[in-house]
């Protein structure tokens, strides 16, 4: 189930909100777990069993881990942590990367003229990247003592399954939210802030992202040798806007939904396209993932405590893994490597040691570099990405009709509005501060959300599945 679906907004959400706020406090977590499992099963079917198995396994390991830590049995605790990490990474590896591994292996065998390994594709449980990272966060936090194990299995299950963050984040580190899982105060003000935030995110998704998506889909869908410079530029610009508004919109919705249940999630985006370096971009883009990698991988590798060479190595490893985390395709690895190299170059050039923001023109340089990266990210293969990049150097010629057809006035307007919001840095663009009604601009943003954005977004949700036929279908 996705947040922008009719079933979610007009049936699931009101039912769960009503049940939650009418229920006695002691059963609320159980009710949320039940609803979240239903939310997951709606789109993942029998994979809900894999989710339950993951919850049970991590709960048991976490409880044992804390016992060892409390007793000072460091070696035993470390072994248990290693076991937990291996189990989770193996689960993620099997479901998400087995197909890529076998395909790559078979490609090598084919290249060598050898018979390939027979293989039936493994289906990917939705959200596995997120709930696996939540589980790992839980185990490491308990091991490090930064948060106590949750005694109630329902509380722990809620951490893993809470539907606002279950399938697309944000990635909430266990120590950030542990106490809120056990005890929280649901207030009207938080609920109201949640409504605004949800509405703002929904509008970002359905008004901007979904409107420009056909442009990106068309440009990335045609053979790259049919693209000219204009089409390629329009396509990557559309994807740049679509990705940000889709992902940050979804995060806003998640934050808003959590607030309706009295839970405060971490912010996930902070005007990333206003960044003036790639280093800054990663401080603003998918912040919850960035924090996760810093806490659990970068620091575990030694962070920047060693030599410069070790720091560079750690950064490259982190960004290669970041790329791979985004999807089982070599394009994502290449995208991660691309960002890792850019970060190294910025470090070598001293960008990261700057004492203040770089001059504004660097924003243009940064956004161009980010957009080039999105070509890798969006392309189905490295070959396609290279072909697409080659189209930037193909001025003249006609734009493919697939692209022309979707360049409608409203799509162009959404594209321009989305792109403009990346160039001007008003605080309301990402909605980061939308939850805080202490600034006039944010109050006005709330007013706009209530009066325009939310109603328009709800109308678009209702029309989102419109798929008419010319002739009656029997």
């Amino acid at each position, binding site marked *: 189930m996705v947040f922008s*679906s009719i079933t979610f907004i*007009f049936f699931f959400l009101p039912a769960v909100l009503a049940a939650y706020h009418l229920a006695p406090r002691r059963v609320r977590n159980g009710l949320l777990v039940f609803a979240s499992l239903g939310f997951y099963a709606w*789109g*993942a*079917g*029998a994979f809900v069993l894999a989710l339950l198995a993951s919850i049970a396994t991590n709960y048991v390991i976490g409880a044992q881990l804390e016992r060892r830590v409390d007793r000072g049995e460091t070696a035993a605790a470390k072994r248990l942590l290693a076991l937990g990490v291996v189990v989770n990474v193996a689960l993620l590896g099997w479901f998400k990367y087995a197909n890529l591994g076998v395909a790559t292996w078979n490609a090598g065998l084919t290249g060598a003229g050898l018979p390939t390994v027979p293989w039936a594709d493994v289906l990917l449980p939705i959200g596995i990247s997120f709930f696996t990272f939540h589980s790992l966060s839980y185990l490491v936090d308990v091991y490090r003592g930064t948060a106590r194990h949750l005694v109630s299995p329902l509380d722990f299950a809620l951490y893993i399954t809470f539907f606002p963050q279950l399938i697309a984040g944000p990635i909430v*580190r266990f120590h*950030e939210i542990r106490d*809120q899982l056990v005890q929280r105060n649901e*207030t009207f003000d*938080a*609920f*109201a*802030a949640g*409504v605004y935030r949800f509405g703002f995110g929904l509008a970002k998704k359905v008004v901007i992202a979904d409107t420009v998506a056909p442009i990106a889909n068309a440009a990335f869908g045609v053979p790259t040798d049919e693209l000219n410079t204009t089409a390629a530029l329009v396509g990557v610009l559309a994807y740049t806007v679509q990705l940000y508004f889709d992902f940050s919109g979804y995060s806003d919705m998640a934050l808003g939904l959590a607030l309706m249940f009295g*839970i405060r*999630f*971490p912010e996930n985006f*902070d005007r990333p396209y*206003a960044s003036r370096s790639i*280093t*800054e*971009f990663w*401080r603003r883009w998918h*912040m919850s993932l*960035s*924090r996760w*990698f*810093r806490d659990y991988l970068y620091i575990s590798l030694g962070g*920047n405590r060693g030599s410069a060479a070790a720091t560079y190595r750690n950064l490259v490893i982190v960004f290669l893994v970041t790329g791979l985390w985004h999807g089982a395709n070599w394009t994502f690895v290449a995208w991660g490597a691309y960002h890792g190299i850019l970060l190294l170059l910025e*470090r070598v050039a001293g960008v*990261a040691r700057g*004492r*203040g923001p770089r001059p504004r023109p660097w924003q243009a340089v940064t956004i161009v570099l980010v957009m080039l990266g999105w070509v890798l990210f969006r392309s189905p293969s490295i070959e396609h990405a290279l072909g697409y990049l080659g189209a930037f150097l193909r001025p003249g010629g*006609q734009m*493919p009709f697939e692209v*022309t*057809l*979707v360049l*409608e*006035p*409203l799509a162009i307007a959404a594209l321009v509005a989305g792109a403009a919001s990346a160039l001007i840095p008003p605080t309301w663009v990402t909605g980061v501060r939308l*939850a*805080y*009604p*202490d600034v006039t601009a944010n*109050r006005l943003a709330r007013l706009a959300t*209530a009066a325009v954005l939310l*109603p328009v977004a*709800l109308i*678009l949700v*209702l*029309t989102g599945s*419109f*798929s*008419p*036929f*010319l002739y*009656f279908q*029997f």
Partner: protein
Amino acid sequence: MTDSEAPAGVAQPFASEAGAADARHLPGPPPGPWRLLDRLVVAGFAAALVLPAALLVAGVHAAQVENRAPRTLPALSIAGLADMTWPAGVDGFLTDHLWPRPYAIRLRGEVYWLSGGTGNPDVIRGVDDWLFIREELQPPCPRAPAQQVAALERAAAAFGQRGIEFRFVLVPDKHTIYPEKLPTSNPFPPSCVDTNREGVMIDPTAAFQAARAMPGAPEVYYDEDTHWTPMGAAITVGELARSFGPGVWSAEDVQVSGRTRRVLDTPALLGLPRVAVTPKVVIRPEVLQRRVDVALPVAAGNTREIFRITSTGSDRLLPGRTLIVYDSYFAIDQQMVAPYFADSTWVHYADMQAHPELAPLLGPFDRVIVERVVRGFYSIDFDAMLAPAYAPAPG
């Protein structure tokens, strides 16, 4: 981090703890009037979320706007849960029946229309707001024109050997009759529909162009529909009737009387219910037509109509039985075609393709007429579709 905050020391490419999850940062109350706004917004939000479902429970269902039967609520089953067909079925049911949805679709359609677009890449908006469907500008072309014409010639020869008259009516796509109405920035390259189709039996293109050249003549196609107007239909029926010899057609057969309404098909693809009112054309009003549905023991995959029309009241009716394999153009104007045939049996071309057992069950026939629009011309396997109609009768 804000613009005013300078990164101290070596900046890491990782987000800071600013904005991390923290219950201490739950929003507090805003000042007076803003709190009132909050109350109103929360109440409105709750109403917007609850009302559609409440109406559905109360039995208020949406009108169908997608030209298909509304989906029904699927029965719950373990298998359906495991493979997700049940949730998908419930999604479909809720979507189709949610009361405000048609209004939202129409509102969206109107906004796109006012903006100058269509909101549907399958609909092309041309000059003077003429609408074209993408399929006619970019049709599938799995077979070559010569291949199709040769297949029709084979069919004609086979029918001829059995003494069956055969006609094929090729309906032009709208853009070939009204090329000036295409958008000036039409990006579509020439396609198979623009290639030579000499040898096709009845192609009213020239007659349409001649009709358009007459001053004050009504349009032969609707501006916002894929189909011809009654005038376009009358011209084609005239071409067809004349092909059966002198005396079948008379200019007096066509009478314009009053106005007729048509719910336009292309705006419906945009969520816009629109109606066109055009001069009503009646052909051979003296002919009495009687239509009956034909029940057949055929496990048809659809319920397109198979019917029989018997005509009486004129001495110029073509005798014997006629099979009319129709596309949508003849379907909407069947009452203009039928008055030339004493006994016509009508089958949709898709049913003829899918069910070779139909022709022997319905026949034998004295003549066979096939009608198809150009954009679908190259997709039909004429040999397979028509062979059962000209095959020798069993026994």
